[in-house]
């Protein structure tokens, strides 16, 4: 899966905006979006929020977890623990990137937030690399990866699954009596 496709899925998440126009309810195929009144906050999916922001029709309100203290705590916890901490949003990386790219003026301390999220991401990817390495080395057949987000799985995933497949093919061809399958990839 391309990172752009993971971002596509993340864009369905809801975020609060404050519009500066008014519009009555829209009935989209995927659901209804509530009436828009200037100055009153309303929830819309991220793809719409970014588009409205680009047309200067709204102001974005950062989600409550996108705050320097909270992210600092999460980063510290991630560094302390060996396992993965539960992230406040399953799409934290994509949302951070989108919101900070298009709406950094609406988000206080945008640069600090960017650094904190990047630090947390780096720690998590390092942990993922270590556990993938031990998975392959010990030839495990199953792994539980509960608090990983889609973007992280996606970053390591394609390479990992292809590598595991190749190893499996090489190993099963070593075992005697399997030679009948040598042409079956």
């Amino acid at each position: 899966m391309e990172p752009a496709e993971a971002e596509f899925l993340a864009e369905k998440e809801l975020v609060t905006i404050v519009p500066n126009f008014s519009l009555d309810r829209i009935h989209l195929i995927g659901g209804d979006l509530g009436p828009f009144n200037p100055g009153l906050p309303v929830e819309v999916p991220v793809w719409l929020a970014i588009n409205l922001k680009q047309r200067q029709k709204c102001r974005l309100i950062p989600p409550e977890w996108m705050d320097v203290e909270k992210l600092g705590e999460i980063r510290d916890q991630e560094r302390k623990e060996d396992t993965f901490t539960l992230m406040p949003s399953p799409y934290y990386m994509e949302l951070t990137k989108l919101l900070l790219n298009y709406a950094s003026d609406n988000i206080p301390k945008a640069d600090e937030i960017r650094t904190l999220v990047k630090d947390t991401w780096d720690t998590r990817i390092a942990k993922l690399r270590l556990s993938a390495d031990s998975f392959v080395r010990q030839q495990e057949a199953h792994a539980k990866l509960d608090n990983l987000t889609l973007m992280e799985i996606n970053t390591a995933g394609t390479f990992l699954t292809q590598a595991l497949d190749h190893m499996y093919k090489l190993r099963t061809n070593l075992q005697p009596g399997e030679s009948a399958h040598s042409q079956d990839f």
Partner: protein
Amino acid sequence: MRVGAQPLAGGFGGMAAAGGEGTEGDSDGGSEELVLTPAQLIHSLEQAWLNEKFAPELLESKPEIIECVVEQLDHMEENLKRAKRGDLKVSVHRMEIERIRYVLSSYLRCRLVKIEKFFPHVLEKEKSRAEGEPSILSPEEFAFAKEYMANTETYLKNVALKHMPPNLQKVSLLKSVPKPNLDSFVFLRVLERQENILVQPEMDEQRDYTIDLEEGSQHLIRYKTIAPLVASGAVQLI
């Protein structure tokens, strides 16, 4: 499967477009009609898309979902054509249509890639399918697969085989085209709790063991053991 009637484009000058009644979809002899809201329909399209993307083999075809989605998109397009004014609403609807259309075409394209890759096995599976089992190919895909097979055979014959000595002029596509690798690893998220899923490590010294899959957890595991769970919708590939 019917899509529940809902005013799809209520803002367009008072035209309350009734939700698409996809009655052509429930032609599999007496199965119960599920009424889905459009939102649930789009959600199941996305699930089917993700499953198809990550599964190593071609999954069941979902003609009902595809027909209903195409109907919804056509409905919305018609409404948009009729309502020319109201620029903001039109553009929002258009954006959503583009998003849904992207998922739909990516899904269909993914299936076509797999059909082209594994065409003899797909056709063989379809031929040997029992009466009550769901089909893995839609009628159009079946026609495409057969044509592709015929074209490949003709091509191989004209380019190479007819110049070979007479006793070597046959090629078995079933044996020479690689089979889908059902032992590949996939990531999945559990939607319904499952118990006692067998995990088979490759080395003979490690014994088979069973695990339970908790709802909401994510796993990395070989495709073969969980293939029926994907078909039934109990897990989602990611």
